[in-house]
């Protein structure tokens, strides 16, 4: 079933983790898509963003929005950023 970030989980709960893979998109679309997905994130839920590079611009924007995040490089060279909105 195809879905959009805004439509994937109309009633997200604190037990939900979303994953968004934005590899293969030109800058700044990865940032745009992740922030749009973050906008739908409810308190306690988490979003994992998979990017080709360390998303430095995204991290700065997450800081500005008061969202906690953890960024890790994976074995294939991509980066996984776990974002959470505090309860």
């Amino acid at each position: 079933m195809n879905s959009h970030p805004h439509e994937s989980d109309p009633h997200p709960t604190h037990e939900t983790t979303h994953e968004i893979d934005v590899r293969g998109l030109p800058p700044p679309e990865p940032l745009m898509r992740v922030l749009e997905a973050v906008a739908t994130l409810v308190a306690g839920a988490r979003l994992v963003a998979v990017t080709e590079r360390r998303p430095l611009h995204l991290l700065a924007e997450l800081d500005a929005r008061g969202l906690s995040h953890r960024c890790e490089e994976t074995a294939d060279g991509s980066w996984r950023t776990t974002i959470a909105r505090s309860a």
Partner: protein
Amino acid sequence: VADHDRTVGVVETHVPSSAPKPPSPTPSTGVALVGGGLLPLAFVVAALVSLVASVGWAAVAPDVLAYHHLHPHVAAHVHLWLPGCLLAVCIGVIYQMMPVVLGVALRAPVSVPWIHLALHFSGTGAMVLGFVGARFEHVALGGAAIAVGALLLAITAWRTFLHSGRRDTIAWSFPVSATWLFATAAVGVFAAVNRRWPILPVSPVALLQAHAHLGLAGFFLSLLQGATFQLVPMFTMGTLRRPRCVAAGFACAQAGLVLLAVGLVAAPSWFAWFGITTIVAGVVFSAIAFFATLAGRRRRMLDPGVRAFVVGVALLGLAAVAGSIAYAAPNPVPAVTSIYGLLVVAGLSASVLGMLSKIVPFLVWMRAYGPRVGRMPVPAATSLGEPRLQSLWLAAHLAAFALLAAARAVDTTPQLAVSGTWVLLVAVAIFVADTVRTLDHLRRPRTPQPAARPAVPSPTATHAHLHPKSSR
């Protein structure tokens, strides 16, 4: 899964009740937008002012580009284009790009890049006015201001580089090119001082050649041999290919530069020849990696900016050939040397301004719209620039330099050079119009209508369809 089969997806999973708590905040390294994005844009705006000053002056005195390449007015034009415009753009890009590439914040107080900006443009102004009035003490003074700015950049680049853990060619290219820039400015200052108050019995032409080649090959080539392999994959959706060729190209160019600089000033000519050959070998290695990287891109259609960059790189290859011919000729042929110079300026302009037409929309978008994403509709970054204007600029730019080169080759009347100058004026006007149009988003951010908003590709578009990977 092959790269081109990757999808953008939202995968919904459910975390067991024993799942770890949300991640603890990890602050970003504060490197995203240097000076809030305004610093590199300030360099860009000042660079465009310099470019407009050059073509505006050429419009008033259009036959100046038909003069001998050592004429002080030609030197003034060259310095408006190279340090005034192209170098300024590169400096702004280095300050912005280096911390992002290296993953650490600039190791310098916030004021340092702004001081550099002031030094660079006051120095360029003094230098150009010095050339116009043949006052070489003013040239030396302006050059000294540029040299101090270059020293600040070199120190910042080395400190930032040493603080980071990245040690590939892309990372090395920042401090190395900044060091060559300082050397270029220092040699230029010495050439001007030595001309006004002779200190050492060194040929002024040899000093100018060393100054020019340290700047062109030392700074611009070193930077291109590194930054290209960060920017081109990013803007063409590709990956770096042949990294060993990238490293070999950079190493050869560095070795060749040292040999060439020494050979031009002091050593026998075979020393310089050996340097030129080694630099050309380095360029060939880099070209192999560049075209391999380009061939592996996922975005088949090149944007006008990237196309201009590729054309510029090809022109620089032709310039290397023309430069070798000019150096090999037993008696200097001014027309060949002028055409070599024109090819260098045309190629560098096309590549630097082409990449600029990709970078400026990105920086403007990040500053004007980044904080709004997810909160309100925002336009796509690609909609900030106008591709048709960019294509038109490239065509006019190439036509202008073709006319100027033809004028130098046939050299019968100044009319051809005057025509080239006017076409160049049109090209610059188009480029500036497109850039100003983009920059205007900083002053008046737009809010697109949702229906007309192409910001996020349709979920059904290639690479962009969304699908759940797993469920409860």
